């Protein structure tokens, strides 16, 4: 358990950043981290059998965030895929967390969930593609392709709408 606590401290910023930009709520992100930590503590010696505790931790966090989002799906604003009209140039220069979350969330909502999850884990969670392959239980080339296609789609959409140049 001490090992888990050390790992949580070590990964705190990455885990929290991932949860914040996944959920869009600082307090909720903190609650989720505590829930994940307690849930893993509850597993006790079962964790001894886990090959890579760090990746297992991220996997648990992604599952927990996914469950939370599905539960509140009806309450939150959902965006129509490919709706670029709702993004304006001023949105690309966020001044605070709320604005930044809205921008990132809207951009990633343009992508299939598999691609956005790889991007989140890589950019927000600071995970390598090898780690992400393990976390998502997907082949490494697939993970890299998801990232590449995701960035490519965003690039084309942003360029066509003159949001980047």
């Amino acid at each position, binding site marked *: 358990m001490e090992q888990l606590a050390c790992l949580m401290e070590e990964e705190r910023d990455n885990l929290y950043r991932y949860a914040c930009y996944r959920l869009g709520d600082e307090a909720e992100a*903190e609650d989720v981290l505590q829930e994940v930590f307690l849930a893993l*503590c509850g*597993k006790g010696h079962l964790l001894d059998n886990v090959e890579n505790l760090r990746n*297992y931790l991220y996997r648990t966090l992604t*599952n927990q965030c*996914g469950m939370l989002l599905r539960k509140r799906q009806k309450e939150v604003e959902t965006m129509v895929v490919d709706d670029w009209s709702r993004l304006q140039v001023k949105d690309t220069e966020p001044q605070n*967390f709320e604005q930044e979350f809205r921008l990132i969330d809207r951009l990633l909502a343009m992508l299939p969930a598999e691609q956005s999850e790889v991007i989140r884990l890589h*950019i927000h969670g600071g995970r390598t593609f090898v780690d992400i392959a393990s976390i998502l239980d997907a082949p490494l080339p697939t993970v890299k392709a998801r990232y590449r296609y995701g960035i490519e789609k*965003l690039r084309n959409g*942003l360029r066509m709408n003159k949001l980047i140049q």
Partner: protein
Amino acid sequence: MKEERDNERLDEQVVNLLTPKHAPRCNASFKVPETTKRVSLWRYVRTIGVAAVVVMGVFLGIRMLAPSEARAAQIIDRAMAGMKEVRSCRMQMICRIPGKSDVAGNLIYTILRTEKGDFSRMDMQEESVRPHQTTFLYTPDSMKVWSDGELEIATLRMNQKPDFNNWITLDVLMGKFEENKRNLSIVHETDTEITLRNSKHVYKYDYTYEGVFSKIDGLVKSFSVHGASDSDDFTMTIQCDHIDYNIPLTVDEITKAPQAKSE
């Protein structure tokens, strides 16, 4: 070539847009809790149930085996040996916790042992408070959880032992009986069956575990768990009337996704 360079430059801008610059700071600290937080009454009840059996073993560790206890211990040994030969099994349990919480639920636990490895599954149907259906499935390679028919978790098993939110399974129940042979008593006996009982007081709760064992093949055929507390008007009953062994069961059947809840 120029287009390629342009794309790279634009990709950097995309990544820059996606990179947090206003990320909040996390103030949480992670200290190992003395006791793990329990979020549902189901989990609470199960934990107390398992803990009761463990404490029984410790408390009675110094006692010598009386003749009837020795016989009861032999029955458990035989049941444990018989369990190793079982290829498949299904048992249905009913849980009732009347009172303020008014929890009632049905649980179906199924196991299948194959050459490729073991499959185990728990279907939980909570009927009161908030009707809810949860299914846990462990295959040799993966773990899945469905909630109201919707797949919520699908991960690699990563050498984990099956953990149905600490809910008591046949293996766990038998394991606990085996740990606490010294406290076993014979409460009823027929030509074909013998009933063993374990009772213990833990904190402010009294728990009684009873199992009916076959004299023919040694296996446990049914069991019940009863918990009660006078101080907070708590009672709990878990009843399993019949356990089927070596039933015809395929991998497709045990891994089948549960039906989605109709609106």
